[in-house]
């Protein structure tokens, strides 16, 4: 019994032993935690130091706290868009993989939809959201579209590699319908979901600049239409030549992304190893 309890503790602690998704050497840890952030900070310093033209205007009254708060506002939108993308992606991927009829129809449609740039959908965004004053909805919708296909395609890939024997075993032991989703599909696609989520968030961060600077896609829009967030800060800083705001905004965003990578994605990537089929 003591043996079992010790093993149980070992299992519980298994994921805590790795800070990265792999058992990193001291040199890899040095690169990840010290050198990479140092390079980013130095790069920012040199940009600031040697390109004074960026800083031609007087900095406005934005504190570092404002920028951090804006980053969290952006992160909140990204998170909502991500949750919506996952909720929509699962049924789409399941239909495309498990139903021959939908597979023949949906996969080519997904391919076409994925290739349409999100920016081309601005008229729809304006019709659906901006006209009704739902500016946050507009931003979240753009972020959602930018994330959706990454998740759909990685889920399709994940569902296709669930071994037939696992499906048969589930059926033999009475795991069907909702319990099949919970006990086979969700854990079975977990590694691909993590990969898809990383790609989706990367795509989402890229699109924040567009999504939050709403004045850029409303006919006759002004900057006051923009949403409070790191994306609109960057656009504003760039257009007004406020180099300090620009550099600090990028820096805060990079730090937030790095923190998320280290404390969320790396942990999940490591955990995902347990979910891979041999």
């Amino acid at each position, binding site marked *: 019994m003591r*043996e*079992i309890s010790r*093993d*149980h503790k*070992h*299992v519980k602690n298994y994921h805590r032993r790795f800070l990265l998704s792999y058992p990193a050497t001291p040199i890899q840890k040095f690169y990840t935690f010290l050198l990479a952030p140092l390079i980013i900070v130095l790069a920012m310093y040199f940009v600031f130091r040697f390109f004074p033209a960026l800083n031609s205007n007087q900095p406005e009254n934005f504190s570092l706290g404002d920028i951090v708060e804006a980053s969290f506002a952006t992160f909140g939108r990204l998170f909502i868009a991500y949750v919506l993308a996952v909720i929509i992606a699962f049924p789409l991927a399941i239909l495309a993989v498990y139903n*021959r009829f939908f597979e023949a129809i949906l996969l080519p449609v997904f391919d076409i939809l994925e290739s349409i740039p999100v920016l081309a959908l601005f008229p729809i965004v304006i019709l659906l959201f901006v006209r009704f004053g739902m500016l946050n909805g507009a931003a979240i919708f753009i972020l959602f579209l930018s994330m959706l296909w990454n998740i759909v395609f990685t889920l399709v890939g994940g569902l296709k590699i669930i*071994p037939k*024997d*696992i499906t*048969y*075993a589930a*059926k*033999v*032991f*009475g*795991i069907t319908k909702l*319990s099949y989703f919970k*006990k*086979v599909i969700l*854990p079975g696609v*977990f590694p691909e979901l993590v990969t898809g989520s990383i790609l989706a968030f990367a795509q989402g961060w890229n699109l924040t600049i567009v999504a939050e600077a709403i004045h850029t896609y409303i006919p006759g829009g002004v900057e006051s239409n923009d949403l409070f967030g790191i994306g609109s800060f960057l656009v504003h800083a760039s257009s007004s030549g406020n180099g300090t705001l620009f550099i600090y905004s990028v820096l805060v965003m990079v730090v937030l992304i790095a923190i998320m990578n280290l404390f969320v994605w790396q942990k999940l990537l490591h955990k995902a190893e*347990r*979910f*891979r*089929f*041999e």
Partner: protein
Amino acid sequence: MDKENKIPKKIIFESVSKIYVGEKDEAVTDVSFSVQEGEFVCLIGPSGCGKTTILKMIANIEQPTTGKLIKPANVSMSFQFGALFPWLTVFENVALGLRQKGIKDPKLTHEVHKYLTLMNIAELSEKFPTDLSGGQKQRVGIARALAVEPEVLLLDEPFSALDAITTAELHDDIIKIWKETGKTIVLVSHIIEEAVSLGERIILVKEGKVREEFKINLPYPRREQETDFAHLVMKIRKVFFA
């Protein structure tokens, strides 16, 4: 009516055929045979002959296209490569079917440990499948199949990927479990020697049809070096490769 015919039949195939969706040819054609309660039957045949399709129909994974199949509802199966869920510990893998049946602690833990002990893998309880050898995975797969206390235990080439020593050990364990529990067992294999070692009866399947049945009256444990064993293998081999 002789004594053998008085034993109730657990599985009855009557002219069963199966065509998979999208396929033209039948995977099995007009298959008829039966398995008695407590019998150990081995289905043998070359790869792609339809023996696994027969097993899947017994397991309710596939349905016959035509013909009649009578089988109990409580059938369990162990798979070629274990088919263990990699994200679950050995304990949770074995508990899978029990949880689906709504069995809860403390009965659940008691049952799982009972079958882990029966398969000599109690110490692996908290390990994950990736930490196990091929033989250990098969033991977990068989423990999982037995834990739901099935009326019929199906074994789909469970020893095909194992080394000779592990296979021999598992053969002995399967025979021991069969004798102790009196379960009806249907094993699929493409190895004639394995079928002769284990089964009371061998059903030879070729090109989707039952070609011949062989009754094995040798006492257990059976060893390949014995003359009767070798004669039987030769006899089956002639039909197998004909």
